[in-house]
């Protein structure tokens, strides 16, 4: 019989939100969106520098980015930025001691006071808001 070691699932085990809870998934998503937004920021700085190539250079570059694929990438960036912002505010409030609950005696099943319904609602809200913002972004970009 093959031995199954739960600690050897690698990234698949790490991203599984059913085992470690939505807080762990939010932690991972916060880092992934952060890296994605940093990559977009650097690309955006390069993209806007094309204005120095004059009107022809700018329009050449605009033709590359203003495509259906470009709009979809931008919609993903919108979703990432909304999630990162809303979840970031939740994390900031948590670090400031807001919404983490009062210290209590650790009784079975040892649910941490800080991982309460308020934070779970905030995480789910940030995912829903990100999806809504993506849809709005797509409507604006493809509506024109």
């Amino acid at each position, binding site marked *: 019989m093959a031995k199954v070691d739960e600690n050897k699932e690698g990234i698949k085990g790490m991203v599984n939100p059913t085992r470690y809870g939505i807080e762990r998934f939010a932690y991972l998503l916060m880092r992934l969106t952060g*890296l994605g937004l940093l990559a977009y920021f650097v690309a955006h700085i390069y993209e*806007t*520098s094309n*204005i120095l190539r004059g009107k022809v250079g*700018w329009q050449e570059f605009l033709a590359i980015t203003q495509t259906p694929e470009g709009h979809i990438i931008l919609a993903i960036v919108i979703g990432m930025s909304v999630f990162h*912002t809303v979840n970031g505010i939740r994390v900031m409030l948590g670090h400031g001691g807001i919404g983490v609950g009062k210290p209590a005696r650790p009784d079975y099943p040892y649910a941490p006071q800080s991982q309460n319904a308020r934070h779970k609602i905030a995480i789910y809200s940030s995912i829903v808001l990100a999806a809504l913002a993506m849809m709005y972004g797509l409507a604006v970009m493809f509506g*024109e």
Partner: protein
Amino acid sequence: MRESVIMKIHYGTALASVALVAVHILFRLTQGFAESLQYESVIANYEFLPYAGMLEIILILLSIHGFNGLRVILLELKQGPTFEKSVSYGCIAAMALIILYGSRTIFMTSMGMV
């Protein structure tokens, strides 16, 4: 610098960026997304000095926040004096490069050097 001070800077730059990037996006939406990206419109935006100043502030804030965030992620993955120093100085260097490159675009365009 103490990590607690760095995190305060991280959160401060985040909140300021949210407010200023919202203004930046509103500029795109109020003018019409496609029209606002036309060459003449973009040049007019850069030549409007308060807006160009705001872009410069956004550039600095997001560079600090973004590259400090990258530093934090890398330090969570691996620790050690040499690695931590390399990551910290590497992120500061990348941040400075991005600020310089972006500032070049803002200054040259707002001064009509295009």
